[in-house]
């Protein structure tokens, strides 16, 4: 192959105008986010809308914590899909496994960066977390197990799953050959190596799945174990977090899979069976989440203590009602779109993408509803009502993080095949 121009698979190394435009937009968002973060570091958290609750009448957690929960939630589906492919043998999902794994890693990194954005002194926060955290605390589970353990396990899975393609890519002449050789680390795609990889991937997937449930449950328990905070204290928080994580993550994967199919000009990859499976999974999880929300609201509104009833009323018909009903309305619409396709047996990628986007609107709105109202209106102490309005600095930092995620995926796509390479393909350019 050496000495001849060859087309690398899945657009690797090919720079198009559309790709450049997307990179420019993502880089601009990162720039704006970095500028906003510099302002926050120079002026301190006063540049944000966050204030102490109680005497200062604010909320200590706002957009950043809502998006920590959101990003960590998005990470759920990626590694779950990758693990299910191995454990249940869902081979038609294989083409989306790499993008799903990448989504997990990127969203976990964004979650970690959101933690740093929320801390007044990030370096001191990190050092003290590892030094003094109590492993029996849900905070430990969330901010260290999730971000260190879960991220590391996902990186190991991603690295091992990519060795075969790195070996295949190293057969092509390319400036990144050294990277492919290093990644392949001696892999030669022999039957023994393939069998070994299948074996270890299965066990790794089995190890990651419980870690994943623990990680998302502890995130829910951070809120659910707060006995003195009406609106948070609930046994449904942990399972609710796991289910909503699945909703937002699968929604993201549907959108990414459709974008890949469109941008790479693939007519049959990922195949329709993969989209159908994702649609069915999103439908089931969406219905379960609606059920959880109804049970939660009925319990708090009908039989809750005074503060819980007041908070439920505030969310259902008061100040926070627009967020709540936007989220629930979006999820209801997504379920409607998915159910109509499931009942008719005809699945449409544009409708699935719309459902995925709507599911993520729900996820963001519901995270805000979980985090903020209990801080501004849920105190058991005789303080007045609080208020939280995010500033442009917070919005810009979150936009910057999203830009960073998009930029990472865009750059990765040009350096490494975003889908599994079926076999070495050589195309001679005219």
């Amino acid at each position, binding site marked *: 192959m050496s000495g001849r121009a060859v087309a690398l698979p899945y657009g690797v190394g090919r720079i198009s105008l559309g790709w450049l435009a997307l990179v420019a937009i993502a880089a601009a968002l990162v720039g704006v986010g970095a500028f906003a973060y510099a302002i926050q570091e120079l002026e301190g958290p006063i540049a944000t809308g966050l204030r102490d609750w109680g005497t200062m009448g604010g909320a200590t957690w706002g957009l950043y914590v809502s998006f920590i929960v959101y990003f960590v939630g998005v990470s759920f589906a990626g590694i779950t899909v990758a693990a299910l492919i191995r454990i249940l043998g869902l081979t038609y999902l294989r083409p989306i496994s790499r993008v799903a794994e990448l989504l997990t890693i990127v969203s976990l990194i964004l979650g970690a960066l959101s933690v740093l954005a929320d801390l007044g002194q990030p370096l001191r926060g990190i050092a003290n*977390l*590892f*030094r*003094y*955290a*109590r*492993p*029996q605390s849900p905070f*430990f589970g969330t901010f*260290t*197990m999730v971000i*260190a*353990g879960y991220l*590391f*396990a996902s990186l*190991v*899975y991603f*690295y*091992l799953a990519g*060795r075969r393609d790195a070996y295949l890519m190293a057969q092509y002449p390319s400036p990144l050959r050294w990277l492919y050789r290093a990644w392949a*680390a*001696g892999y030669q795609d022999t039957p*023994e190596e393939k069998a*070994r*990889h299948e074996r*270890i991937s299965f*066990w*790794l997937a089995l*190890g990651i799945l419980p*870690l994943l449930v623990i990680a998302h449950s502890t995130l829910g328990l951070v809120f659910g174990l707060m006995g003195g905070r009406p609106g948070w204290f609930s046994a449904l928080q942990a399972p609710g977090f796991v289910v909503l994580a699945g909703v937002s993550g699968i929604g993201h994967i549907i959108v990414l899979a459709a974008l890949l199919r469109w941008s790479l000009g693939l007519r049959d990859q990922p195949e329709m069976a993969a989209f159908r499976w994702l649609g069915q999974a999103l439908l089931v999880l969406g219905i379960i989440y609606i059920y959880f929300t109804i049970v939660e609201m009925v319990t708090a509104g009908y039989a809750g203590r005074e503060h819980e009833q007041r908070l439920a009323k505030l969310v259902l018909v008061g100040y926070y009602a627009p967020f709540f009903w936007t989220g629930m309305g979006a999820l209801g619409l997504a379920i409607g779109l998915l159910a109509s396709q499931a009942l008719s047996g005809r699945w449409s990628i544009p409708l699935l993408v719309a459902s995925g986007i709507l599911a993520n609107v729900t996820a963001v709105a519901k995270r805000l509803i979980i985090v903020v109202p209990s801080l501004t209106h849920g105190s058991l102490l005789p303080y007045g009502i609080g208020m939280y309005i995010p500033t442009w600095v917070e919005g810009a930092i979150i936009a910057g993080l999203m830009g960073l995620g998009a930029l990472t995926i865009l750059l990765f796509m040009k350096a490494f095949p975003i889908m599994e390479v079926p076999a070495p393909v050589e195309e001679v350019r005219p």
Partner: protein
Amino acid sequence: MISRRAWAALLVLTAGIALMVVSYLVLAAPWGFPPESEKFSNPRLAFAPLLFIIGVMIAFLAAVVYELWPQRGGKE
């Protein structure tokens, strides 16, 4: 018969799990008498939580060891 590769991976996995168990049960868990005393609330060793996380990482590294362990003469 268990291959050297599997032994090496098992060794790394065991080391990771052992570090998790020791860092939590011995260095951080709130054991003591009386059990509700705040004295036993914090980890007994600074950075014990970090050791626990390193234990998790080492356990998952066993998969890398299993796959990357050199193959002698083309056979196990």
